[in-house]
Every structure is written in structure tokens, then in C-alpha cells.
């Protein structure tokens, strides 16, 4: 059943026409989720700017009329999918770090969770990490917030007082996004996990010093 629901949500199968006995709320969720899946597919294939509502509904196998029952337009649909992915990514990172373990270990676990979640699906990774900047506007603003929140999940409770945390976070997330985007473009989603030592070192270096950060990142 779980599998059937996932196939439905992924748009791989369609609901039978007519009276199928499924509750209305399920149908609604199913259509909405298929559209969210459709926007991810369309954007990964065409890029944000070239994605049209027609391409979204085509990928979702849902009528344009139904699209407008759920979303005001392309941006609205994109943002809804983005919220869902962002909650999932950040949730995975937060769940990965055990608060009882030392901070560097937490950083490693959380960055590993980030890479793991992105490596499972190339389209989702592109949608989440590389397309929002091309979109600009409200989407880019939402993306900035998301990156900031990710940076906060790996920030130590207290850093050097003289440090400009905002600048550090921007450089960190810019570096993380750059390395991941590079692999995504080369179609190497499956090997994202190889980036872990670099990301850990990048995150730890401002606080531990580069030598210690390198040591921690390359051990284990």
C-alpha cells in the first residue's frame, strides 16, 4: 500500500477514473503532490525560467484547470514544493545530530545527512540547491532563508566573539553549495557522499583552526 501510494504520488500511475472509493482528501493530496512532483521534474529538466505551467501539468499528468485549483501560478507551485523539500532536508539534518555528542561529531553527522538526502535524487537536489538563484525574486529570498537555517544547524553554540557570524555562514553555505552543484552538474549525485570530509573541514575550520579541522575531518 505504501508503495502504491508512492507511485501515485510520483505520478507513475493514475487514479482509476470514476468512482474509485478513495476518500476525497486522499484524491486532493494525491493531485497536489503530483503537481509538486511535476514542478520538480520540469524545473530539473528545463531550468526554472523555461519551465511553464504546461510543462508542470504535463509532467504531473494533471490538467491545467486542476493546477489552478491548487496554485496561483508557477512561482506558487515552486514555493510549495520548495517548502516541502526544505522541511525534509532540514529535518533530516536535525535528526542526524545527537545533542549529547561533541560539536564536531554533530557537524559531521548533519552534513552527512545533507549529502545523503540530496544524493538520493538528482532532480530534487538541483531544484533545491541550484535553480532558485536563477529564479530570483521571492524564490531566491526563500532560498537564502533556507541556506541560512541550514548553516544554523551546524553552527557551534558559541564562537569567537570577534567573528562575523553572518559572513562566515554565507561563505560556508556558498562553499557547500558550490561543491555540491559542481557534482550535480557533472551528474554525480551518487558520489555526493565523497564530499563529506571537505564540507566538514570547511565548517569546522573557522572555529577549530585549519589544522585541527583537517585532522577531525579526515579521521574516521
Amino acid at each position, binding site marked *: 500500500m505504501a508503495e502504491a501510494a508512492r507511485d501515485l504520488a510520483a505520478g507513475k500511475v493514475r487514479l482509476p477514473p470514476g468512482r474509485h472509493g478513495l476518500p476525497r482528501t486522499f484524491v486532493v493530496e494525491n493531485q497536489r503532490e503530483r503537481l509538486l512532483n511535476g514542478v520538480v521534474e520540469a524545473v530539473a529538466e528545463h*531550468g526554472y*525560467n523555461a519551465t511553464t505551467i504546461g510543462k508542470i501539468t504535463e509532467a504531473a499528468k494533471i490538467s491545467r484547470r486542476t493546477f489552478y485549483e491548487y496554485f496561483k501560478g508557477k512561482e506558487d507551485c515552486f514555493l510549495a514544493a520548495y517548502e516541502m523539500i526544505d522541511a525534509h532536508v532540514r529535518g533530516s539534518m536535525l535528526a542526524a545530530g545527537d545533542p549529547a555528542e561533541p560539536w564536531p561529531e554533530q557537524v559531521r553527522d548533519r552534513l552527512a545527512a545533507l549529502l545523503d538526502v540530496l544524493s538520493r535524487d538528482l532532480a530534487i537536489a538541483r531544484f533545491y540547491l541550484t535553480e532558485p538563484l536563477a529564479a530570483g525574486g521571492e524564490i531566491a529570498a526563500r532560498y537564502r532563508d533556507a541556506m541560512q537555517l541550514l548553516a544554523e544547524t551546524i553552527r557551534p553554540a558559541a564562537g569567537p566573539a570577534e567573528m562575523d557570524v553572518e559572513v562566515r555562514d554565507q561563505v560556508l553555505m556558498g562553499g557547500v553549495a558550490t561543491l555540491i552543484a559542481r557534482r550535480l552538474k557533472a551528474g554525480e549525485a551518487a558520489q555526493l557522499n565523497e564530499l563529506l570530509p571537505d564540507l566538514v573541514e570547511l565548517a569546522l575550520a573557522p572555529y577549530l583552526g585549519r589544522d585541527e579541522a583537517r585532522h577531525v575531518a579526515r579521521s574516521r
Partner: protein
Amino acid sequence: MQYLSQRLAAEPARTRESDPPRGALATSQRERILDATEELIAEKGAPATTIEAIVKAAGVSSVTFYEHFRNKEECFVAAFDRGVEELRAAVPGQPHGAEQVLAALLEAIDAEPLRARLCFVEAQKGGPELRARYDAALDAVAGELSDSLGQAIVGGLAWLLRERLELGGGEGVQGLLPRMTEIVLDPYPADG
């Protein structure tokens, strides 16, 4: 994966059937077109910049435009390439340390804010070709650094510059010098 080498190998985008016009007049026309393009993209963004607006601002005919460029995208790429070349020319080479290099870069950015906006902000929104160009330019800088951590730092600093240019309300980027230098030079030793 040979990604970087592929990008670098793709360097000159000269697939035009006929050579572009030569001579002093042609050069000045081309420069004027690129000036206008730079300005329009910085002000309105690449998607909203049309050939019509470019030729009007440059004071050339659209026939002249097409003598130099096949289409809008090719013109955008040329404007971007020129901007990057001039930024790189402003930055001193080898014997200079990170702080001098960064200082020169930030100064060049503040001296030509529209050019910087084109290169760091709008290039990422101007469609796949321009974006690939942006990535290639970053790769070229990062390629001079051997390890992927160095590449991450280059990406991170470019990110920081983009954020400041886009959201900083025109206050300039030279104030970032101490922060950027400390990020490159690692000022927090283990006993910090």
C-alpha cells in the same frame, strides 16, 4: 569526471560563420554595445534586456548589432567575458599575498559597480549559457588552487560578494576585506 577541463576547453565561443567586422570603428561599436549591455543587464536583469534596448542605448543600428553578435545570448556572454577579463586584469599576480589580491579585486568591483553586478549577480540569472560562463570563470580561479577546499572557499567568497552586491544597497564591498582575508588566511589557530 573531467568537468573542469571540459569547461576550460569550451573557452572561446566563436562558432560564427563569418568573422566579425574588423577595424577601429568596429571595435568602438562593439565596445559601445557591450557597455550598453552591461548597464542594461545590471539595471533590469538579463531576461528583461532586449536587443532593441541595447542598440538604442549604444547608438548603433540593429544591423550593426547582428554584424557583431548572432543573438542576445552571445552578446551577454561577450559582455560577461569582458567584465571578468577586466576584473582579472585588475588583480595582481603571483608574488602578491591574499590580502593584496583581495584588496585589488574589491577595489575594482567598487570602481565599476555595474560590471560587478553583471559578473556576480545577474550572470546567474541570465539563462543556462551565461550561467555556465559564470561557473567556468569561478572554476578558472579555483583551478589555480589545488584542493577542493580551496574551490569551496572561492565559491563561498563569490557567494558573499553576490549577496553584498545584490542586497547591500550599493554600499560597496571594500568593507569586506578584513573578513575575506581572515577567511582565506585562517586566523583562528587551535589555541584561538
